[in-house]
């Protein structure tokens, strides 16, 4: 099992904290394959991969990233497996997730096939 990612944004050595080994999973962002740790917030995995624009605002189409990281604001809404308005900062990453940048209010969810 792979447990280590070495993006240069990942903290490997810290004076106070240890970050335990976690399983590496593959997911897609806008169709592009990326890797992250299972169970970390989607936003953490995306940030580690250098992706900061998660959403565009519905009136002026301005880029939006995360802001509070704990589910208070709605700045980081993404579409996950076709479901819009998912908070990237609190939703846990899973193997095979299909994550897309949300445009405005996002698409209405489709019935599962």
């Amino acid at each position, binding site marked *: 099992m792979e447990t280590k990612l070495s993006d240069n944004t990942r903290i490997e*050595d*810290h*004076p*106070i*904290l*240890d970050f335990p080994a976690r399983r590496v999973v593959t997911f897609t962002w806008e169709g592009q394959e990326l890797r992250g740790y299972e169970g970390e917030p989607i936003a953490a995995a995306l940030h580690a991969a250098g992706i900061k624009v998660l959403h565009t605002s519905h009136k002026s189409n301005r880029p939006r990233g995360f802001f509070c990281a704990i589910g208070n604001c709605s700045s980081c809404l993404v579409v996950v497996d076709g479901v819009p308005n998912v908070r990237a900062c609190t939703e846990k990453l899973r193997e095979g997730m299909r994550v897309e940048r949300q445009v405005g209010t996002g698409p209405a969810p489709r019935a599962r096939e």
Partner: protein
Amino acid sequence: MNTLLTTGVPSAQDIAGVTPPDERRKRGPYATIECFQPIPCDPCHHSCRFGAIQEFEDINDIPKIDWSKCTGCAVCVAACPGLAIFVVDETYGEEECLIAIPYEFVPLPEKGQPVRLTDRAGIVVGDGTVQRVVSGRKPAGTSVVWVSAPKRLATVVRGFIPRKED
């Protein structure tokens, strides 16, 4: 206006108030507590085995030190939550003094490692060497690094930047 409150750097007057008299400085290592503002905090008093840091009447009291009891052991350096205590030994050598500095960064320097010495504003003021490292246990502890410095910088040096050995 008080430079401490406008820049984070204590004034010369602030420093003079927490530096022992010359006679005590010549006698051996001493702690200096750079905590100038009443805040609710008392672990320094409880960390001192020698009773040198006086008991607090009020939790907001500014710590007072009795230098006749202080041995310069530096237990308080690792105990202060504000990382505001240092130990200075001006009897260390002819030309050099020894300064104990709380350190919470990685990697922890090693004995013999050369360092750039910095002052209270983070400005490099000279060169020194790591003489002793007391590692704080992760995650709870704070490490204490003893660096040697030119004696004239005993009241100036309060930090360091590790250098790679050339």
